[in-house]
């Protein structure tokens, strides 16, 4: 076979060109060794994309290997389009989280929309029907117009896309903190269900099988998106990055979803993969790499949207809503027929070979021929030492005991915390998402975790995304552990058993020692928590270079947790039910205020040691909760997190927006802690539960059996009564209508004003 020759018009390969492709001199030497010759321009582009941070994981791979990935219920761990676990009853769940931070910073609506599109494809290419999405969003402070623009655009983008495809949103999180001023974090997660036997992988098996490009046409959009996602933003990027904006077409996605599931069920195909980051290049090379085969494709056969596209452009385009399919030889027409039913195109573009190379032709003339495995797996990886920044260390070690007194009094502070956009209801967000389509949403957003029913069964899947970036900023290890613990606790509160996680690691530039420190610490914290809580990692995503003009975001390892609830009749909701019910606190108050919402909202301070995680206590608490829920003795359960007990109690009383099921409560604490620390401390390992008076004894007994501190703190009171809280030092009587306005009104009052 002829080796590829430079195309006319290709620029010569110079050190500058190599550098522009984000390839270091050492890496280029590696490429020369792999190729045994100078690469063509097209090949350089292919290497650049595949060896980018985004595809090659060069600065994260070694550390990620430390994560626990196995458990008897894990069917597919990291390395595929999505992780897969057994959820019982013959069903498997595919799930994954992905970032779309950079595209969302440039064009929030399309950036977020295409983020949803990509993660849906990752899930349905496993053979699973998407059943739920979640989103984890972190923005700068809401008082800045630019932030409001980004926030509203992102939410609308997520909504419009997911709604059109018809996938309910079951949850997520939104944070606002100056740590995300110019770099929003936009992570989207998808859950999909399938019968276990329908699992299919992204492989290119069987020499002679046919490669088909399916779905939308290829345009010039997003070329070098993978490289772009690996570079930091700088002023003026709005203009520079214009050609990289990808526009989402959710309708085509919906067709692609239906067609793909039909294709997979038909048995006509052996492999399928989304053309995501680095498009045709990564999908082709990865499918070949996983199977130990090769692929050969002719770019002239790829359906394009624009005239005159070069092989370089076609290979690297990130046009949305496209898939690469490996059809069993001879079944191409059957494949085409299914796609035609869904009004989609399918073109044969090449075949599976035995050569082990990723070979590309243009009208029959070779333009690239690269060994597939080194391309996908051979990217040099680095693990350079990190070092904590002195600034963060100082903040963490700062003595915050002087901030126990809220300047305007406790009640004002209480209202400020409950009405801070981080604690306040995210109703404004999730009501823009279809939460009920497909009629399986058993627990919608607004509680601790969303719960979706496995269709046709009484089994449910609970999910939650969590990461308190302020905590991870101050102490990445404790913060990451805390994110896992909180996510598991959220899921457990509904009565579901935490099973596995996916994660999205959003960090600044790994070229900086303090970012490397954050990353390493966060991975170690996640490792420890996941190992101990037996929730292995089945996949995820790393997003580095979330920086603008050298300013990095808070390290933000978002955890997407999955739990299974075997009997939906045992589900527990987060809000108090009946007046007269007894309220208990499970777990102990330690009054940890470091990195709290209280310090931020009341004292404008990000400092202190964030709450530590006692994994043993956390596990005991979770088992205790599950024992209670499976016995049906709880009326409600709601975990304590951002905003502390104050937030938990208010949320438990208010119930769901629009449901009109709010109640009051009368609570008393005897802890020997300053009021602020007691009410606003964000210590882990705590859940507020309620039960009917006749279950009180059983609640106490189950808690003591599990060695979990259990304190009766009060009683639910009738609708219309206030929230009364008594501490050693103070008594608060808070009108529920006032609290409701604070809690439900905070975000709308900012967002419903024009611009």
């Amino acid at each position: 076979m002829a080796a590829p020759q430079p195309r006319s018009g290709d620029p010569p390969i110079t050190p500058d060109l190599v550098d522009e492709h984000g390839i270091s001199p050492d890496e280029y030497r590696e490429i020369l060794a792999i190729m045994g010759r100078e690469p063509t321009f097209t090949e350089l582009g292919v290497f650049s994309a595949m060896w980018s941070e985004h595809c090659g994981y060069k600065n994260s791979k070694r550390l990620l290997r430390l994560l626990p990935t196995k458990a008897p219920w894990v069917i597919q761990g990291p390395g595929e389009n999505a992780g897969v676990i057994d959820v019982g009853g013959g069903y498997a769940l595919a799930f994954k989280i992905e970032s779309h931070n950079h595209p969302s910073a440039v064009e929030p609506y399309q950036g977020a929309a295409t983020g949803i599109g990509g993660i849906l494809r990752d899930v349905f290419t496993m053979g699973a029907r998407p059943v739920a999405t979640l989103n984890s969003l972190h923005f700068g402070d809401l008082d800045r117009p630019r932030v409001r623009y980004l926030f509203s655009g992102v939410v609308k983008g997520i909504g419009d896309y997911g709604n059109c495809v018809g996938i309910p949103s079951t949850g997520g999180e939104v944070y606002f903190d100056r740590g995300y001023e110019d770099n929003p974090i936009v992570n989207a997660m998808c859950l999909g269900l399938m019968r276990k036997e329908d699992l299919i992988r992204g492989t290119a098996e069987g020499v002679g099988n046919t490669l088909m490009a399916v779905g939308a046409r290829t345009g010039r959009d997003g070329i070098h998106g993978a490289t772009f996602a690996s570079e930091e933003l700088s002023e003026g990027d709005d203009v520079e990055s214009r050609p990289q904006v990808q526009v989402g077409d959710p309708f085509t996605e919906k067709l692609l979803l239906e067609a793909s599931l039909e294709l997979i069920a038909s048995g006509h195909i052996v492999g399928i993969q989304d053309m995501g980051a680095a498009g045709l290049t990564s999908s082709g090379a990865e499918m070949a790499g996983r199977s130990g085969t090769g692929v050969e494709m002719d770019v002239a056969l790829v359906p394009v949207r624009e005239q005159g596209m070069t092989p370089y452009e076609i290979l690297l385009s990130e046009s949305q809503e496209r898939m690469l399919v490996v059809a069993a030889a001879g079944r191409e027409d059957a494949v085409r027929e299914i796609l035609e039913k869904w009004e989609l195109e399918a073109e044969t573009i090449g075949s599976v070979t035995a050569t082990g190379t990723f070979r590309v032709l243009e009208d029959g003339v070779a333009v690239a021929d690269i060994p597939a495995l080194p391309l996908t797996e051979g990217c040099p990886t680095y693990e350079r030492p990190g070092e904590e920044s002195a600034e963060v260390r100082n903040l963490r070690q700062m003595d915050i005991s002087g901030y126990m007194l809220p300047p305007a009094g406790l009640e004002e502070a209480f209202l400020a915390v409950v009405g801070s956009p981080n604690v306040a209801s995210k109703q404004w967000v999730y009501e823009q998402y279809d939460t009920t389509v497909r009629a399986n949403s058993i627990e919608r957003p607004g509680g601790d975790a969303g719960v979706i029913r496995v269709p046709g069964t009484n089994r449910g899947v609970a999910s939650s995304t969590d990461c308190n970036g302020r905590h991870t900023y101050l102490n990445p290890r404790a913060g990451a552990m805390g994110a896992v613990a909180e996510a598991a606790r959220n899921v457990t509160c509904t009565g579901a058993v935490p099973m596995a996680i996916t994660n999205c690691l959003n960090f600044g530039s790994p070229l900086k020692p303090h970012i490397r420190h954050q990353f390493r610490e966060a991975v170690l914290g996640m490792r420890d928590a996941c190992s101990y809580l037996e929730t292995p990692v089945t996949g995820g995503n790393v997003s580095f270079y979330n920086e603008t003009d050298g300013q990095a975001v808070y390290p933000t390892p978002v955890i997407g947790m999955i739990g299974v609830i075997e009997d939906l009749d045992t589900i527990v909701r987060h809000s108090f039910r009946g007046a007269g019910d007894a309220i208990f606190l499970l777990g102990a108050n330690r009054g940890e205020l470091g990195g709290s919402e209280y310090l931020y909202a009341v004292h404008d301070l990000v400092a202190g040691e964030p709450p530590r995680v006692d994994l043993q206590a956390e596990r005991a608490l979770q088992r205790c909760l599950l024992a209670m829920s499976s016995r049906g003795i709880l009326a409600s359960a709601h975990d304590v997190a951002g905003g502390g007990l104050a937030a938990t109690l208010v949320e438990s009383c208010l119930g769901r927006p629009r449901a009109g099921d709010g109640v009051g409560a009368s609570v008393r604490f005897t802890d020997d802690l300053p009021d602020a620390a007691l009410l606003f401390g964000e210590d882990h390992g705590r859940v507020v539960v309620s039960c009917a008076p006749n279950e009180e004894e059983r609640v106490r007994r189950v808690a003591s059996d599990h060695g979990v501190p259990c304190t009766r703190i009060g009683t639910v009171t009738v609708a219309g009564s206030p929230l009364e809280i008594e501490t050693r030092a103070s008594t608060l009587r808070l009108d529920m209508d006032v609290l409701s306005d604070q809690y439900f009104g905070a975000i709308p009052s900012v967002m419903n004003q024009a611009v």
Partner: protein
Amino acid sequence: MNRFTVEVLVTPRPGLLDPQGKAIHHALASLGYDSVEDVRVGRAIYLDIEAGSAAEATERVEDACRKLLANPVTEDFRVTAAEPACGAVR
């Protein structure tokens, strides 16, 4: 001061995918309009504005386009002022 009606046409940048246009094209074809070769969809915005002159009205609207009416990343715009007191397409 006069009242002008200013027309703003906002269109997707060439090269960007236009799913709406694509869908309309498809629908037209299936209705038998097969001589249609391409369809692009944008927004038409009509502003009634008080200004000293048409030029002033146009200028102010162009400024508003850059700030709000068009998305500089994905859209182009074109502004035309009608004569004062002319109702335009209203």
